[in-house]
């Protein structure tokens, strides 16, 4: 039965493609085939941080069941330890737990043309898109904004590009978004990945030019997991710690408390529990706006807590 929750991967290759950029290739630790993945898919890696395990999502630049998953990781100055670990500690042969590939940033099947706009390390999903579109002869145009001294790195990553519409700009000022979007043929979809400022500017420019919302796509790793919090079950007095990568329902079950559930995806309503104290962070599709606002109920299969402690009538 297909119920694999995680992949156990081993580092097959690791190399610096530029001072702050490390490319790693991961294969299945047991040598088996890896699941294939769509262009734009990401995996979440469990990496040792300073105080606890960190779960960072990285886009797959390449995903081949035999050759492995390739990603390019920038060393982040504000790193809590995830990218620092990949840059300073990670070695060929290391074993890493990862989620199955997951796609929240996908090419649109009906696009007449794909306009790709990247900033900095935001190039990674665009590299996967370019490889896919090249293989299938899809019409595309790419604009990559590079920071100081990195233009040539991106030029290399995007090669070969004979006859293709690929432009690497040194800095944001090199790209006139309004002119670029205004010049696109009808039926073009735009995809953007990079700093929030760039993605917001693409969104705003497209909206101002009257692009349909459904033609504008930006990278998204989703909101799986969140901050850890405490649960108190009023009836039994049990206290349960909910970890960042665990759902409330999983934590309740792990504590040996039996509570009904069905879909485990926030849709069926079966797991509903009354809230006594605290503020839920609703992520379900079951409760109405009014019910959410009252905060009297929560769906523990997907929702979390905004307050450090949530007291449930269980």
């Amino acid at each position, binding site marked *: 039965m297909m*119920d694999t929750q995680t992949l156990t991967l081993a580092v097959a290759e690791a190399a610096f493609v530029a001072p702050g950029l490390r490319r790693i290739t991961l294969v299945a630790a047991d040598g088996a085939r890896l699941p294939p993945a769509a262009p734009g898919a990401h995996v979440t890696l469990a990496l040792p941080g300073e105080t606890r395990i960190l779960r960072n999502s990285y886009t797959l630049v390449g995903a081949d069941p035999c050759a492995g998953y390739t990603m390019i990781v920038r060393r982040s100055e504000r790193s809590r330890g995830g990218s620092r670990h990949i840059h300073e500690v990670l070695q060929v042969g290391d074993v890493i737990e990862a989620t*199955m590939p997951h796609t929240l940033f996908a090419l*649109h099947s009906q696009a007449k043309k794909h306009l790709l706009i990247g900033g900095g390390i935001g190039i990674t999903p665009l590299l996967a898109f370019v490889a896919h579109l090249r293989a299938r002869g899809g019409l595309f145009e790419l604009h990559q904004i590079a920071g100081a001294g990195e233009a040539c790195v991106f030029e290399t990553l995007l090669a070969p590009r004979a006859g293709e519409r690929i432009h690497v700009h040194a800095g944001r000022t090199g790209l006139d978004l309004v002119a670029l979007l205004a010049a696109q043929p009808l039926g073009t979809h735009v995809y953007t990945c990079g700093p929030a400022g760039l993605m917001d500017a693409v969104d705003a420019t497209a909206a101002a030019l009257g692009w349909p919302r459904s033609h504008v796509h930006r990278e998204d790793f989703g909101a799986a997991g969140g901050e850890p919090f405490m649960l108190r079950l009023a009836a039994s007095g049990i206290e349960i710690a909910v970890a960042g990568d665990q759902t409330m329902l999983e934590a309740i079950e792990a504590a040996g408390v039996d509570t009904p559930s069905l*879909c485990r*995806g926030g849709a069926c309503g079966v797991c509903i529990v009354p809230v006594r104290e605290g503020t839920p962070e609703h992520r379900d599709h079951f409760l109405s706006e009014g019910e959410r606002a009252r905060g009297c109920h929560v769906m523990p299969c997907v929702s979390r807590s905004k307050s450090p402690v949530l007291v449930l009538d269980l």
Partner: protein
Amino acid sequence: MATVFKPDETFRDDYRYGNSDSAILRFPFPFGEDGYMYGVNIEPHSRPGSSGAFAVAFDVDEHYVSECAERATALALEPGRCLVLPHMREAEWDTLELIMESLAADYPDQFALERQGDDWTWTNRPLGLHQRFRFGDATTLPHPPFEYIVRQAQGDFTLQDQRDGTLYIDGGIATTPADWSLAFDVGMTFHEWHGPVPLAHQAGVFDRALQYLMRVRYGHPARRLNWTMTINPRLDTSPENYPLWGPDRASLTAQTIGSRLFLRVELQSFFRLPRSNALLFGIRTYLASLDELTRVPKWGRRLHRVMRDLHPDIAEYKGLSRYHDLLVAHLAAYDDGRPTEPGIAPDINVLAG
């Protein structure tokens, strides 16, 4: 326990079909309580549940060989029952890989898949097939990849492209449809193709179900049960062929209803496909006659209560109105008024004679 196939069954014309005792006991009975109303009855399809039919991703049972022959017959008569839009090519290969991998892993005595890079060899022992091909190269298979593999699987399948915040039904095979047409629905959105269903839209069922489906992840499939009734063990109840089966509804009598009326259960499954990011929808139909089902006392009792209290709009939509009174009168004999246990399991291990 190794499955013994019944290769001589037919689902049209002379209707030679029946369930063994073990097939009855593993039947996915769709009623977990004594009433029925539409709801978002979806659950993860990842751990065994209360029916033997839930144990693996794609259940292969004693009707496998005959159902594959029925599919070939239906496709020979109407090739248009399999229809995939050009932008779903990648999803076709994803489907082929998922079904081959699952069958080979779950039934290693019956199916085998060997892979050297893109050079694959597929062995299907029940159907006597041995096929070498190149993954991704449709010219190396006798049929397009989706059709090739669904000809070797029980049940219908549809392929959904996910875009614009909804799902589009952009391909599939429907040779066992419960009165819906793929040719008519193809290209529609989730809410459009569910248009004819009564009550559920207003209850928000489809809005919630769609949100759930769009978040189904690779490696984490989901399932639900749906049901209707069919006269005779006929798999192909398509709107196009209505004249061939519709009039049967008026032909039931108190003497024949037990053996000729079948509960038709769809074990529906939802799989995210990895390369295409499409959603594969499996509609696996199980048929059991009232005579077979009422051998399980709990099911006989419950079936009576569910049918007696069924909302008239649902009875009308499912096409039961015509024989509903006859059905309830027939089932009343199996309801001794005792309470039933919650859940769909038969709650017995052996059937009484």
